[in-house]
Each structure stands twice: as C-alpha cells, then as structure tokens.
C-alpha cells in the first residue's frame, strides 16, 4: 500500500470531514483530493514523471500538504525544505537530490534561482487553481481533474529528509512507501486514531515528526492542524492553539512542551478535555517537567524514539513508576514491526542492567542515504542505552559528538569544520551549553594570527554550509584550545570557560 493511498481512501470514506487546516484556511478531504489531483496535473505538465524528485520549499499550508500528495500521486518523491533554510543551503539540497521541480512560495523560488539551483519552478500561490490565486477557504468549484494515483512498490522512494551531514555534503535520508507505511500504520493503531481526532503538527515538514501528524491523521480520516513555522516556539500562542483548535493528539519535541510550561502558562489553565495523547520525541524530556505535565493532564504520555534513519523504532507509555525515577522516562520497546537490541562494546548482546549501542532492523529502517549505497541489514543508531529488566531501554547518550539542540541533530564536527573552513580561522571547537529549550551552540575559534573574524561573518559563512539549527549561537575568539593529556580538545574545560565567561546577551 502506498503512502498517498491514505488521503485517497479518506476522501472516499469521509469526503466532507476536515483534512488539513492552517494558515490560509482548511481543506476537507474532498477538497484536498481535488487540489492534489489539480496540482499533480500541473506538475505532470511541468515534466514530473514517476521516479523524479520534487523539492518543496515553502511555509506550511494546506496547499503545501496537497502538493506533497500530488508528488506522491505521480509516483515521484518529495523533498521538503524548511522555509528558514538559508538559500545557499537549500540550493545545495536541491542540486544534491537532482530535483526535477522546485515547488513553493514565490520569494523562496527566486532565492533558490539566485543561488544557482534552477530546476523548473512551481509557485503554489498560483498553481493550484489555473487562472490565478484562489483562497483555499472559498467554495470549491475547480474543474474536476482525473484522479492521479500511480502505484508504487514498498521499496519505492516516497520522500527524502535531509539531516545533519558532513560540511557541504548534505545527507538525505531516503524513506520508502513501505518504511513510511510501517511507521504510520503502527502509530495510527497504537493511538487508536479516529475521524474525530485533531492532530497538531508542530514540527517542520522537513522533520520526521511531521510524518506521524499528517499521515496518521489521514489514515484515520482525522484533521491535522498545521502550526505555522513562525509560531513553533511562541509558547503563549501554542497554548492558545492547543485550546482553541481542540487538539486531541499533540506531538512535538520536549523543548516545545517545556517552553509552553515555563513561558506559555500551559499548566495554569485546566487541561483541555479533548487532549487525549501527548507524544514527544527527539531528546530526553526532563523528568521534573514530565511530572508536572502528568499531574496536569490525564492524556496518554508517549515517549517515542528513533533517529530519522529508522522513523520511530521504540516507544514507551509513561506510567506512575516512571515518574518516581530521577531520570528521563525509558525509550521503551520496539515499535513499527522493528526488532531492536543493544550490543556491548565487546560485541555481545546486552542483557538487563547492561549498556550497549542500540541496533535496529525492520520495516521502518530507511532505504539508505540518497546517492549512496543502500542500507543493508541492521542499522546502528550510535545511541548508547541500558537494558531494563522488562527488556525495554533507557537512553544514556551518544557514542560520538552528535548532540541534540531542541530535537535537531547537530554533528559538532560539522559545525567545527564549517567554521575552520573560513579563511580567517585556524581552528574551532564547538560545545552545547545549557539544555532543553535553553540549549545553545558555543564555538571557540582560534583566528589566523592577526585576524579577528566577526560573529556575523562567521555565521554567514556557516549558513552557506549548514542547516540553520547548526549555526553557532555564540563565538569566543581564543588564542588556543585547551587539550587533554592525549591531545584531544578538552570539551569539559571549554564548558567551564563558557559558563565562567558569559558574553553579552543570553
């Protein structure tokens, strides 16, 4: 079964139920279906054929979701880009995936052209309705297009999500229809999603969390409400949205929820009666804040775990015993039909109480990175876990320098390499200071003798090579980097220095 069949089936079963809402209005399933077919016809006209990639670079809107469905209906794959992605980076991704078409908002389309990524372009504001823009909340009298519904095999590419990769070399996680369906079908069943549900989509469309929001909703014939990209970290507006939109299933990084608790007054109002499940993933949820959340709502609290490469591969429903511990809730047991296990540093399978790296095998594991060898066999996550007595897992940390900042993967080596590639920089080391919604990247930069590169110049340089969440927040110019006995950069010493020498600002 293909990923795009979900919205097609929902349109047949529940044509008049709301499918997707957000900035720009709301589409029923029948409207979404018509719009997806209309956009597919326009894309086909623009030369998109089965097996192509279509990049989508736009602010979230119902039309963008329709465009994603249109791409899939043609047997092609979509490549979503965050609207805040610097154009140079976006152009790199568009070239890397060899997109046939770039689809999105006018200003972004022009910016991509300025940076030399020039496939055909499709402006969503004018494309959906031939003859000009049409607000999505108007009654739909569009010409009836034929239903476009190319079949796709389980191993055919559905979308590519670009994540942290080596400097200048984007890393596209290729997800097949089979991968996505294994995850979505599991999630919809675990949540017992029904047409009356109202999912909030907090994450950007280029992040894997959004796959659950959109497609679990479609599978159930439910609504997905798109939180505008610009509101994702506006705590008061998020709390208002949760109440006003009568959200029943919320899914976000823990940072968004802790920010809503701390600065949005989330817990000061009664928990909305509609809210029945709160899902979080991407980083550990601080246990003190999780206790507050559990005391506030009777909704199910689900901790989901999995790198983008595996979708969600384990999950755990938070219970009273978890709240009594002084560490984050477990990441739990296998999900989505996967098999997961931990290998000790000796290469043995870890038993209860033992630690090891988590490995994943099963239907949700990606096809591979775009343009590289296919993923064969089990996937090593790079995450260190401890096996619990019940066979589940506690997350302990990373085996490398990959860190999470508000749920986004940041490979510190890539941030350092981007800085070190600046002509006025000799050497650079980057650490994370603070945690949760207060985490930030601090760089220690050794300039070339006699130079003092500016913060803005270094950010600009980095922005041409890295996604926005991997750009250093603060830069300390230093004469040299502290070293440990074996010559490695002493990150602990840098951490102490960052705390002792707070630069201006916060």
């Amino acid at each position, binding site marked *: 079964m293909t990923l795009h069949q979900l919205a097609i089936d929902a349109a047949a079963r529940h044509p008049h139920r709301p499918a997707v809402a957000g*900035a720009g209005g709301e589409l029923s399933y029948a409207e979404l279906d018509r719009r997806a077919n209309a956009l597919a016809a326009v894309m086909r006209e623009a030369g998109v054929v089965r097996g192509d990639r279509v990049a989508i670079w736009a602010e979230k809107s119902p039309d963008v979701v329709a465009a994603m469905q249109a791409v899939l209906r043609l047997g092609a794959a979509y490549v979503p880009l965050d609207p805040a992605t610097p154009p140079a980076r976006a152009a790199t991704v568009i070239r890397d995936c060899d997109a046939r078409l770039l689809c999105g908002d006018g200003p972004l389309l022009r910016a991509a052209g300025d940076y030399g990524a020039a496939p055909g372009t499709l402006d969503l504001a004018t494309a959906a309705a031939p003859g000009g823009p049409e607000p999505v909340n108007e009654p739909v009298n569009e010409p009836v297009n034929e239903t476009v519904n190319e079949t796709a095999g389980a191993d055919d590419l559905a979308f590519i999500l670009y994540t942290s990769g080596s400097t200048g070399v984007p890393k596209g996680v290729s997800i097949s229809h089979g991968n996505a369906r294994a995850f979505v079908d599991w999630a919809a069943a675990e949540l017992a999603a029904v047409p009356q549900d109202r999912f909030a989509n907090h994450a950007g469309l280029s992040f894997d969390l959004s796959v659950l929001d959109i497609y679990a909703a479609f599978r159930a014939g439910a609504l997905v409400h798109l939180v505008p990209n*610009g509101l994702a970290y*506006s705590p008061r507006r998020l709390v208002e949205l949760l109440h006003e939109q009568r959200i029943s299933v919320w899914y976000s990084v823990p940072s968004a929820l802790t920010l809503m608790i701390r600065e949005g007054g989330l817990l000061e109002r009664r928990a909305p009666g509609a809210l029945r499940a709160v899902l979080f993933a991407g980083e550990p949820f601080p246990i003190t804040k999780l206790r507050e959340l559990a005391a506030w709502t009777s909704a199910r609290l689900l901790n989901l775990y999995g790198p983008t490469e595996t979708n969600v591969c384990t999950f755990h429903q938070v219970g009273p015993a978890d709240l009594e511990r002084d560490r984050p809730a477990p990441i739990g047991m296998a999900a989505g039909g996967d098999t997961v296990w931990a290998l000790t540093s000796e290469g043995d399978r870890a038993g209860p109480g033992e630690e090891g790296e988590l490995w994943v095998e099963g239907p949700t594991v990606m096809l591979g990175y775009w343009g590289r060898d296919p993923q064969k066999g089990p996937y090593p996550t790079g995450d260190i876990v401890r096996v619990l007595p019940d066979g589940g897992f506690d997350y302990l940390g990373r085996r490398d320098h990959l860190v999470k900042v508000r749920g986004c993967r940041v490979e510190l080596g890539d941030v350092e390499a981007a800085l070190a590639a600046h002509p006025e920089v000799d050497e650079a080391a980057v650490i994370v200071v603070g945690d949760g919604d207060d985490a930030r990247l601090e760089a220690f930069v050794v300039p070339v003798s006699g130079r003092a590169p500016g913060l*803005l110049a270094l950010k600009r340089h980095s922005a041409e090579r890295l996604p926005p969440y991997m750009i250093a927040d603060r830069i300390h110019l230093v004469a040299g980097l502290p070293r440990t006995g074996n010559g490695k950069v002493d990150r602990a010493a840098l951490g102490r220095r960052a705390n002792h020498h707070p630069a201006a*600002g916060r």
Partner: protein
Amino acid sequence: MADDQIVSDLLVFIRTQFLDGDPAGELTDQTPLLAWGVLDSFKTARLVGFIHDELGSQIPPDQLNASNFQDVRSIAELVRSNGGQAKAAQ
C-alpha cells in the same frame, strides 16, 4: 522617524540577544537575517515575543513568513503595519 526608532529597537534586540552585542558592529538594517543564519525558528519566536511585548504589535500567523523576516527593514515595516510603535514613542 518613528520607523527609524523601530529599526533601532529591533537592531538593539537582535544585537544583544542573538549577536553577543555585535562587537564588530556588522549588523545593519539590510543584513539578510535568515540567509546568514542570524534567525532560526526559535530565535524568530523570541523576536516575535519582543515585538508583541515591547513594540505592541501582534503579528498574524500568516504574516510570519520568511520574506517578512528577511532583514530588519522588512521586520520594521511589518511591525508598523500591524500597529506597533517604537519603545520611546509609547
């Protein structure tokens, strides 16, 4: 004049909150904030909070887009068109 004051309030906020005080004095009202990695979604939200709390302007969600936030000049225009005022003018 009021517009210039809004520009200056925005520059001060961005310098102190996101650029460590901008010691090299690089930020101008035409610095491309998104393209150069000064703003991301988290920082944009903090900026929107500042615009609401200090400049008295509530930006509608459909105007929270990349083209309105490309530089300080365009943000100032957005603030003004949504009824915002410079701190000194309040």
